[in-house]
C-alpha cells in the first residue's frame, strides 16, 4: 500500500506565531505546516514550546500574533477548542487527561460526542433517534476498541487502568472523533518497549489506513526517527530545524541544541 503525502493544502499551517505568558516568550516566530497524511514529529528539550504549539493548534492558547490556517483557509484569531475539534483536529495530552470517573468505553464514546446530535428531551425519552444514535456510535466505538485491542477493559473505569492502557484509551478517545489531524503529545512516554511497539503500530495504522495526518511530540528518538516523515526541532521557543529524520540527525544546530547533549528521559 503506497501512502501519498501531500496533495491539497496543508492540514494545519502556522505562520509567524508568537506566544507569550506575561513576559515569558513561549514561542517566537514559529512557522510550521503539515501536509495531508504526513507524519510530523516535534522534538526539543523540555520547555522548548512543543506543548504550547499543540495548545495553539487546538485552540487552548491564543497566539499573541501570527496566523493559523486550516486546509488553506485562515482560522479566526480566536477559536474555542471545541470549535477546533469540530474542524477534525483531535489530540491527546502529555499527562493523560481521561475522564477518570467513566469507563474506557464511555471515554471513547465521549470522543464521538461532537459527531452526535444533542436533544435533551429526545435523549431523556430515548426517542428512536436517540436510541439509534447511541447504538450506531457504540458500534463505531467498538471498532476502535477492537482496533486498539482493549476489549477486556471495556467496562473498567479508566482510573483503575494501568498507565499504558490509559494511554491507549486516550488515543481511542481521540480516534473516536474521526479526526483528519491527530496531535499526539508524548504518546510513548513512560511506556515499556512492548507497549511502545504496540503504540507505534496503532499510530502507523491510523495514518496509513485512515490517512490521518499526525503531529507528535515525542522524546524517544528511536520512535521519532522510525515513524516520522519529517522532524521539526524546537529550542527555546524557536524552530531550529525542519527536515526529514536523516537530515535532522546530521544538522549541526540540532546536535548542539539537543541531540548532542545528554538528554535524560
Amino acid at each position, binding site marked *: 500500500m503506497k501512502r501519498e503525502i501531500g496533495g491539497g493544502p496543508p492540514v494545519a499551517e502556522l505562520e509567524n506565531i508568537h506566544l507569550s*505568558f506575561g513576559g515569558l516568550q513561549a514561542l517566537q516566530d514559529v512557522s510550521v505546516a503539515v501536509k495531508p497524511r504526513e507524519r510530523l514529529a516535534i522534538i526539543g528539550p523540555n520547555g522548548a514550546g512543543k*506543548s504550547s504549539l499543540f*495548545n495553539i493548534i487546538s485552540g*487552548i492558547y491564543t497566539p499573541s500574533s501570527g496566523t493559523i490556517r486550516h486546509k488553506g483557509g485562515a482560522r479566526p484569531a480566536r477559536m474555542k477548542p471545541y470549535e477546533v475539534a469540530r474542524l477534525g483536529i483531535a489530540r491527546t*495530552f502529555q499527562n493523560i*487527561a481521561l475522564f477518570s470517573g467513566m469507563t474506557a468505553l464511555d471515554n471513547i464514546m465521549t470522543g464521538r460526542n461532537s459527531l452526535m446530535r444533542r436533544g435533551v428531551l429526545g435523549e431523556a425519552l430515548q426517542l428512536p433517534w436517540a436510541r439509534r444514535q447511541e447504538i450506531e456510535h457504540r458500534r463505531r466505538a467498538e471498532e476502535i476498541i477492537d482496533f486498539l485491542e482493549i476489549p477486556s477493559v471495556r467496562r473498567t473505569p479508566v482510573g483503575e487502568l494501568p498507565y499504558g492502557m490509559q494511554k491507549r484509551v486516550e488515543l481511542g478517545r481521540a480516534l473516536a472523533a474521526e479526526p483528519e489531524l491527530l496531535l499526539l503529545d508524548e504518546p510513548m512516554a513512560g511506556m515499556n518497549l512492548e507497549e511502545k511497539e504496540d503504540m507505534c503500530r496503532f499510530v502507523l495504522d491510523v495514518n496509513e489506513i485512515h490517512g490521518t495526518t499526525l503531529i507528535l511530540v515525542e522524546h524517544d528518538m528511536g520512535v521519532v526517527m522510525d515513524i516520522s516523515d519529517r522532524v521539526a526541532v524546537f529550542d527555546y521557543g524557536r524552530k531550529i530545524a525542519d527536515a526529514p529524520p536523516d537530515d535532522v540527525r546530521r544538522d549541526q544546530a540540532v546536535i548542539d541544541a539537543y541531540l548532542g547533549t545528554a538528554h535524560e528521559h
Partner: protein
Amino acid sequence: MDELYFFLEVLIGGLLSGTMYSLVALGFVLIYKASGIFNFAQGTMVLFAALTFVGVLELGAPALLAAVITLAVMVVLAFAVERLVFRHMVNQPQVILFMATIGLAYFLEGLGQTVWGTEVHVLDLGIPDRGLWLGPILVSQFDLVAAAVVAGLVGALGVFFRTTTMGRALRGVADDHQAALSIGIPLHHVWVAVWSVAGFVALVAGLVWGSKLGVQFSISLVALKAIPVMIIGGFTSIPGAIVGGLIVGASEKLAEVYLGPFVGGGLENWFPYMLAMLVLMVRPEGIFGEKIIERV
C-alpha cells in the same frame, strides 16, 4: 449638605461594620492559604467560640479564664479536625473538602447548641455602645472599638507571621508545601496551627459580634457573608480580606439605605453575594488574589 453628611455617616458606619466581616474573612483566608481548604465552617466557628465563651462565663469563670478555656477548646477542635477529617482526605478534590467543611459547620452548630442551649446569650464586655459625634457625623463607638480590635488583630498576626518560626512556616506553606517542610515543621502541625489561629480569630470575632448582636444562632448566618468578602478581596490575601470586608460593609449599607426603600428593604441579605458574583464574572481572582492560570 445634610445629604452629604448622611451619606458619609452611612458610609463610615458601613465601613466600620465591614471590619467585622473582615474579621471572619481573615480566618477563611488563613486556612485557605495554608491548606487550600475553603472553610465553610469559619462562620460556625465564630458562633461556637462565642457560645463556649459565654457558656464558660455563665458558669462563673472570669472573662480572662473563659477566654483561655475557649481558646483551648478551639485548639482541641483544630487538632481534631486535622486528625479526624482532613488527614484522611488528602487526595480529594477541593470541592469535596469544601463539602466536608459544610458538614463540619453543621456538626459544630449542633454541638454548640446542644451543649450551651439555644437561647440568646447576652454578652457584655463593657464596650461602650453609644453614638459619638465626629463633627456633624454620628459614629457608633462600638464599631470604632471593633475596628480597633480588627486593626490590633491584624497587627498581631503580622508580628506572629514575621517573627515566630511557626508563623514563617505558615507563610511558607501557603507558597510552597515543600518549602514549609524544609523548615522542619511537619505539614500536620502546620495545619493544626493554622486551624488554631483561625480558631483564635473566630474567638475574637465571636466576642465582638456576640457583644453587639447577642450570642445566637444567626451569627453563623451573618458570618456567611465573609464568603463574598473573600471573593471580592481575593482568596489568598489578608489585605484583600480587610478591603473586601470594608467594601461589603459599605456597599450593603449604602444599598440598603438608598435602594432599600424602593424594593421593600432587606437588600443586605443578598447584596454582598450579588456583588461577589459580579466581581467573579469580571475578575475571578478577586481584587488582591493571584491570577489563576491553568496549565495543560
